[in-house]
Structure formats: C-alpha cells, structure tokens
C-alpha cells in the first residue's frame, strides 16, 4: 500500500497546500512565503468580476447540456450493444466506438473544423449545390451544442464500458422468467435491465455531479478564441488565463478553490439524496 499512500500524499494531500495561493498575491519566483498575504481579497475580486461569472454561467450551461445529452448517451449505446447477438459483430462495433476516445482533443477539434468549418467539407458541398454556407464553427450560438456533440462523438463509446460490465451482471434467469410471462423487449428493459443496473447509474451520476463544473479544458481552450470569451470561456480556461497568461496565480487559485468547493457540495448533497432514496451512493451507510 506504500506506493498508493505516497501517491495520495504527494498528489492529493500535498497539493492541497497549494490552495494557500488563493490567499496571497502570489509571485512565482518569490515563493509562497515571500508573496504578500492578501486574505480574502482574491475572493472579493472574484465575486465582483463579471468575467468570472460569465465563465461560471457558461460552465453551468455546458455542464447541464452534458448531463442531459451526454450522460444517457453511453447508456443507450450500451443497451444497444448488449442486445447484439453475434460476438464478432459486437466486438467489432465495440472497437470502433472505443477508438475516438484515444484521439486527442486537438485532432477531434481539427476534424470537426475540417468538416464543419467555413472552408470545410460540408460547406464545400453546400457551395457546389448552390446552398448557403452553414455557420457552425465560430458561431457563438452553435458553440454549446457543438462542444456537447464533440464530447458525445469522442467519449460515448468509451463510457459504455462500465454500463456493459453492469449489464453482464444482470441475472439471465430474470430475463427468461420475464419472457415466459410474456414481457416484450421494452418491458424487459424497464422491469429487469434498468433496475438491475440502477446502482451503477446512480453511482456514476453522483460522481458526474461531483465533477459537474469540470467540463474539460483542452476542448474549450482550443476553440475559445473562435467564439470569444463571452460564449467560450469556462471555469477551467478562466483559471488558465488568469493564472498562467495573466500571472495572477492567487486569483486563479481562488477561482479553482471555488470550483472545488461547489464540487464537494454537489457530491455531498447528491449522495444524501441517493441514501434517502434507498440507494448505495458512493459508499454504503
């Protein structure tokens, strides 16, 4: 257990002390001790900063869209895959849907640009057929659906793994019994499959809520400029730009800490609700 303990020590408990940055005007080459202590000034600045709240609003909207559209997508895909009979076909389809997970965001974003960009493939066709250009990349209104679509394309397949594992745990006899009683596909899904994997769904949902504000970094960093900060800034890019690009490490740490606290609150309350509803949640009571 020593390597595991060391890991938590160095990368989790040790790193926690970095939060002290949020209370100083941190100058990197002076170090923490010599940087001026500013108390809660960074937080005051944060609460009055419209750019911060803009980033929070964007993050919440995108996280909401992700929750509504991205969270159920792998479940649906997993059910579909599970219903496939032929093992070879299933394996093949699984490999194909896993693949995008291994592409970096740089590639995925470039791919979407080449397809949907102003000079991209789709607009090339539209031009040939004399139709007007569709404005997707660089259009602030289309930005949020676009990033969610990208996420589904990239991660949906990979996210099926846990659901598939859970599905394989559902007792086959229950299906047989239900079928004998005359239950069709839908009824078997509703009364056998979904209740069977409900603890897993709830667990994943709670974990997802804990990372609610972690919508991702690279994907947004790469595309932010094309739509401007009003539509494209999320908390992670905000922290990056204030911290690294502007050198306001203390302020950035405060914003990061804010995000962390919201995450803790969300996990805690979601877990409480799960327990109330008689679910296991992240731990058994």
């Amino acid at each position, binding site marked *: 257990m020593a390597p595991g*303990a060391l890991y938590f020590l160095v990368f989790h408990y040790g790193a926690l002390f970095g939060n002290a940055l949020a209370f100083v005007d941190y100058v990197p080459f002076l170090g923490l001790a010599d940087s001026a202590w500013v108390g809660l000034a960074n937080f005051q600045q944060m609460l009055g900063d419209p750019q911060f709240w803009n980033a929070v609003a964007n993050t919440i909207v995108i996280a909401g869209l992700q929750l509504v559209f991205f969270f159920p997508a792998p479940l649906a895909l997993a059910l579909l895959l599970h219903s496939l009979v032929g093992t070879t076909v299933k394996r093949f389809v699984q490999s194909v849907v896993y693949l995008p997970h291994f592409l970096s965001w740089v590639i995925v974003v470039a791919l979407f640009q080449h397809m949907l960009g102003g000079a991209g493939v789709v607009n090339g066709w539209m031009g040939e057929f004399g139709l007007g*250009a569709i404005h997707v990349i660089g259009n602030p209104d289309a930005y949020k659906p676009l990033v969610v679509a990208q996420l589904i394309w990239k991660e949906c397949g990979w996210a099926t793994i846990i659901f598939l594992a859970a599905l394989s745990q559902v007792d086959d006899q229950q299906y047989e019994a239900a079928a004998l009683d005359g239950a069709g596909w839908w009824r078997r899904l509703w009364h056998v499959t979904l209740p069977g994997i409900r603890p897993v769904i709830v667990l994943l949902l709670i974990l997802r809520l804990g990372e609610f504000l972690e919508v991702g970094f690279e994907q947004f960093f790469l595309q932010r400029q094309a739509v*401007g900060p009003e539509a494209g800034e999320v908390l992670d890019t905000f922290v990056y730009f204030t911290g690294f690009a502007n050198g306001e490490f203390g302020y950035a740490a405060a914003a990061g800490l804010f995000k962390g606290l919201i995450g803790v609150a969300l996990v805690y309350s979601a877990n409480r609700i799960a327990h109330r509803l008689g679910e296991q949640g992240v731990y058994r009571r």
Partner: protein
Amino acid sequence: MSSHLRRRSLLKFAGAGALATVAGSALAGCGSGSTGNVGNAGKNVVPWPTYVPFSGPTPDAPGDKSGVQPLYLNYPQNLVRSVPEAPGDGSDVTAMVITYGAPPKPLESNQFWQAINKALNVNLKVVVVPDAEYGQKMATLMASGDDLPDIIMFSNLQLPRSHEFVQSRCADLSDFVGGDAVKDYPSLANIPTYAWQGMGRVGGRIYGVPLERPKPGNSLYVNRTAFQQAGVPREWRTEEFVAAMTGQSGGGRWGIGGSKSLFGGFGSIAYHAGSLGAPNAWELRDGQFVSTLTTPQFEEALGVMRRLAEKGAYHPDTLTLSATDMKTFWYNGSVLSITDGFGAVARETMDGINRRFEFDLARPYGPNATPWQSAGIFGYVTFKKASADRIKLLLRVSNYLSAPFGTSEYELVNYGVEGTHFTKYSGGIRTTDLFKVENNVNLPIKYLGVAPAVLHLPGYPEAAKAVHEWEKAVLPGSVADPEAGLRSATRTSKGAELTRTVGDAIGAIVFGRKPVSAWKDAVTQWRQAGGDKVAEELAKEHAAAK
C-alpha cells in the same frame, strides 16, 4: 495493526510532508529581491552599448537611416573571419528557446549541430519550445526553482512579470556590454542601438542581448501576380483595396487570411491601422501617452476589416487556423494576402511560394499612412546568474551567433557546412536536401543570437528588389512605438491580459459577433483594466528618460 491506526499515522506523515513543502518554498523565497522595481525613472542608468558597425561587403543598394536595409543581390565572394578563436571551453551550454520548426535531428546524426558545437567549442543542449506553447512554458519556467538553463530566450510576447523575473533571476550584463565594454564582442557592438533600446533596460541595467529585427513591422504580403492579372494597382486607396480583396474572393479563394495568433493582439490590424494613420500603439501628445485604441483612425481600420469579413473576403476559418496552415494557403494561392511579421521576408517563404507567383508587400492604402515600425527586436536572450568567466563565455557564444553578413561565422550559422548543407555558385548559395532538415530553424540557434538583418534572399534577387523598393516607398513615413524600451509595472503584470482583451474585441467585431459600437466598451474596459495606468507610468518613464 488496525486500519484505524494506520490511517492516523498516515495523516501525521502527511502533515510532516506538507510542512516540509512549505518550509522548502519559504527557504527558496529567501534572498530574492523585491519586485515592482523594473522602471528606469530615477535610476542611475547604464549607457547603451557603443555602436561599432562592421565594415562588410559593399551592398548593391545602400540602406539608410529610415530603416531601409542594405540590399545584396548576390552572396559575397570573399568572407571575413570575425571570431579568431572558438568561444567555448568544451562545457555544456543549455538553452531554452522558441521554435517554429520541426524538432532537430539528434546530435549524433545531425551534422549541422555537430559543426556548430565544434565551432563554438561547447556542447550545446537546447530545450526547444514550440511557439504555441511558449507562453505557458515560460510561465512554468519562471515559477520553477533554481533549475534555469544557461541561456533563456524571451520573445516579444507579453509575459506577466517577465521583467521582474529577469531582474531577480538573470545575470546583470551591464558591466560586460554597457558603453565601450561591448567592444570586446565586436558582433554585439555591431547590433544597432535601436535594438538595444527596443529591448530596454530593467531598473537602469542591461540584462540581455537583443535579437535584432529590421524596422518594418507586421505587414501585408500579397500575391502580386493574382492582383496584377485582375488589374489591381500597386498603389491603392481604401476603396480600391476593399474592392480588390472582395473582387478576388469566391470559388474557394479568399482575398485575405489571418490566423489565430494574429488575433491575440494587434497583429491583425497593424497594416490597416498604419494605412489609415493611427499611431503605432501610442501617440505622445505633450508628454502624455494617448493610446491608438482611442483614435478615430483605429476605429476606421476596424471598420475596413469588418467590411472585408462581411463581404466574404476574409478566409472564414481565420480565427481557428494556425499561422502555419494559413501560410500554406497563401503559398498555394487559395489566399491572396496574409498578415505576417517582417520575418516572413526570408528564403523559407520564397521556397514555400516556389515561384508560383510574384512575392510582394502591400503599400499602405490611406492617404496619410503611418506604417507601424517593429520593436526593432524579435526578443532577447538572458543568461542564468553565474561567475564572470561563465558570463563572458556565454557572451562570446552570443557574439559568434550574431556574426554579421559577410563573415564565415555567419555562413556557418545560417547555411551550415559547405558541401554538406549548401554549395556555392557564382553569386549565390544553393542549399542541399539535407539543409531542409538540418538548419537554424529546426535547431533554433537563430533565436539565441542573430546578425543585424540585411536584405538578401539567396536565389530570389527579384523578390529582394521588390522588398527594397517597398522599404524605400514605405519606411520614410513609418512611425515607431514610443513605448519601446520604457518600463511600466502595470504593463509587465497586466500587459498580457490587456493585449488579449484588445485581440478578443478585434476578432469579435471584425467577424460580426459584436457590433462596431461595442468597440467603445472594449476600450473603456481596457482603460479600466490598467490601460490608463500604463499610459501614466509610461509618461513618467518617458519624462525621466529625457
């Protein structure tokens, strides 16, 4: 042992570790100087290095004071040796440097690198940082402890608190290069004073060696062949310019293209603002610094760019494409003009165009143009604090790499080894295939030390002539940025943010995400976020520098 107890002892251990971390950083913090002291006002300033120009080969057309560069159509026949003995002592020299090329081949198989090491008599180790990651990497470097490379290269990119960093962590070179001391390093003495001034002093002292760049700044490069075929005149006015750009767009072709990084600041608008007479960054009015952003000329330039975008003359993916991608489009003729730094006047560009069309620069289109000059530098290099002997060694390395045009050192640094990387013919140099992968872009030593630029494009004399004609026509009316070399504490801490605010607003307005009226708000935001304070501090510095 119960699991409970184990968890306890673990926590104790964690506490001890954290304490050690805090104590460590506290110790590291000791002894470093204070910040906010980068200004030169009220300081005892060290004199600029004495300018001792190198008497090189006679140019085909002379340069002049306005910044027109001496023109060399042919490569000089007789080279001078300017560095009598190798600068190094065989030791390792590490350097962190920006790169715009592919990573270099490893030393064992890289004959260019081997030749450079031999000539310098050092074991040069480079940490190459791709330009896109440069800001991030530098922020990390500045935040790191004592683990600095010997040579740290700074580009013109605004890095937060870089001057404080330089002041507290880099070697003070004043005693080695200030005034006549620079004469020990003839190639450094050959760097014109405007380049040293462009770099500026920090707290009255000199901390770096500038990487000189000629006076022309960001310019618009055009596919002259395409415009000539369409009957577009070389001298144009605003309406002719807009008509030419829109007239040539359509069917997979665009009049003008930009790139993501150009819209990170002023890059995209420099040509237009200069054309219409907007001051270069600031205008000095009775000792006050008035920002170009507040001038009607600047707003007019924004309007012209917006019209280009509205009429479909701008490549639609300008805000998402990298500079490299956009250059490819320019080379292959699908984009007819691009904005780029003057560094684009280089053989690599000509090779990229590969004579598909005639290379030229656009003349400014306004009647009272004030073309914007560059800062006179690409950046500068600083050295890690070390003994005087070590600093002298690094300066000798820098001196070698800055050897002027017409010396054998220049030839090695720029073209490699004769017979391996290039061959000579009467009047020129022809590079070999090996040069494509072994050169001073892939091993980016041209960003560690560079000769003052002359106008010489080996193999492309007609392009060099076109640039010379353009310089003669445009530079006399050009203006410098009055901020060059002046220090403002707000600028060093907030400059990056301020520049980005402006770049974001320009992009949003040009590409129609915001109305033109939003510009006023952007300017107000810029002023409140620190712009006004920068102006105030610069005025103070300027008064003190008199």
